[in-house]
């Protein structure tokens, strides 16, 4: 009886160790490939995303109803008919406002897209990062729509991030505010080159910005176009803080992104990558 108990205990312990080993293997696969176990990732993205999509549309509906109707339920009885009419009109009004706001956003998005000659795919934000350490978004477009890992994600206000993981119909975007993110950039006024890195909060900082460069608070930071995925000249943010120490090669500059990530509903994915010209004067080469 005792040996049966012990053998059962050891079996359970073995299973626990095997499970933790399996977790470590998955972790090392991610570290090695920087992309995870792709087939499993794609399957799980497609498993979770419909729930996110459904929940997002339900919440949007409920939000609309709340603003349009719920605050009217306290009206007095004798005015019920009138109130119902008001409620209906209010709801219609809210729906119209929501429609107008949506049209306005889409118009801006279209205008923005038309201002560039590159190929873009519009996508909706259906979910956000579930953790408190990292920054990402889930989009309703995936490999079937031509979305690939590393592609740039933009909004009319500026750079959002780049595609980190893809499934057939959904994808995950790494925001520029995530500590893992790095985008080649330059200060618009002085053309000083640097790397925009995320801080993990809703801010970024400029890395490798030379101490000799004269930058000011309020200077705009734009993409330099030196990497293949971001076209040149897109707004990233505005410098809010500069720290220059008496020694060292580089200076520290903090910037606030142009895009308000908490209110982002639609984005554009650049489905073309740009290879910067090797010599000055030559046209920009596009690859699909």
């Amino acid at each position, binding site marked *: 009886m005792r040996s049966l108990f012990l053998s*059962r205990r050891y079996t*359970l312990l073995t*299973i*626990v160790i095997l*499970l*933790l080993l*399996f*977790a*470590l293997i*998955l*972790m090392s*696969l*991610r*570290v090695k490939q*920087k992309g*995870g176990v792709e087939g*499993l*990732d794609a399957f*799980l*993205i497609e*498993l*979770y995303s419909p*729930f*996110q999509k*459904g*929940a*997002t549309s339900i*919440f949007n509906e409920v939000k609309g109803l709340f603003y349009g109707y719920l605050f009217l339920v306290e009206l007095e009885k004798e005015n019920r008919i009138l109130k119902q009419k008001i409620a209906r009109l209010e709801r219609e009004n809210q729906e119209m406002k929501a429609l107008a706001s949506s049209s306005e956003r889409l118009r801006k998005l279209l205008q923005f897209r038309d201002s560039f000659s590159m190929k873009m795919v519009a996508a909706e934000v*259906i*979910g*956000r*990062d*579930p*953790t*408190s*350490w*990292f*920054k*990402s978004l*889930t989009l309703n477009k995936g490999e079937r729509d031509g979305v690939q890992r590393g592609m740039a994600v933009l909004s009319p206000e500026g750079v959002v991030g780049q595609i*980190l*993981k893809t499934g057939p119909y959904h994808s*995950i975007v*790494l*925001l520029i505010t*995530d*500590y*893992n*993110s790095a985008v080649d950039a330059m200060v618009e006024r002085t053309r000083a080159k640097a790397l925009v*890195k*995320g*801080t*993990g*909060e809703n801010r970024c900082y400029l890395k490798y910005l030379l101490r000799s460069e004269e930058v000011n608070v309020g200077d705009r930071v734009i993409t330099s176009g030196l990497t293949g995925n971001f076209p040149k000249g897109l707004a990233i943010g505005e410098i809010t803080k500069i720290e220059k120490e008496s020694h060292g090669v580089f200076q520290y500059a903090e910037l606030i992104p142009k895009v308000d990530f*908490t209110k982002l509903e639609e984005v554009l994915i650049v489905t073309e990558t740009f290879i910067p010209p090797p010599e000055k004067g030559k046209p920009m080469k596009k690859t699909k």
Partner: protein
Amino acid sequence: MKKIVLTLFLGILLFTLQSTLLTLSPFYRVRPDLILIFILFMGLSSPLVSGGVLALFFGYGMDLFSGNMFGLYTLTRPILFFLAHSFKNHLYLERPSFQSIFVFLFIWLEGLLILLLLRILNPESWRTLLPLLFSHFLPHSLSTALLSPLLFFLFHKGFFLLSSESKFGSGETG
């Protein structure tokens, strides 16, 4: 089996809430970790093997939808589950305040474990994330701890209703 499938479904629903509705809050720092509470509850009430596999699955999901490139939650979530499971007979968790403290301690344990792993895997990011410990992680852990008694109560009711219909993971012992 039915209970495992329902647990899986409930976990996915909680994940959906965490990555959609809870992110809409204007106080973005105050975002409770529903999945963590659920995994800790499973640690106290579910069998070792099926619960461990589910904790690993939910951790993998967290990694997949976050900007995390190392698969940290795939490792930390089963560890938390096994720890909660190991201590379940030594803890008195009947009172809501004890449940909150229990969850608070475990969420900090996970936070420190993540920072430690990041220090090993990517020392530079560790330095970037360290300041977030008090500005972001503290409100996050407090909100999670405060919500945990209510969720523990609801999970307990749900599991009680289910166990009156079927036996969870028959053939396994906790």
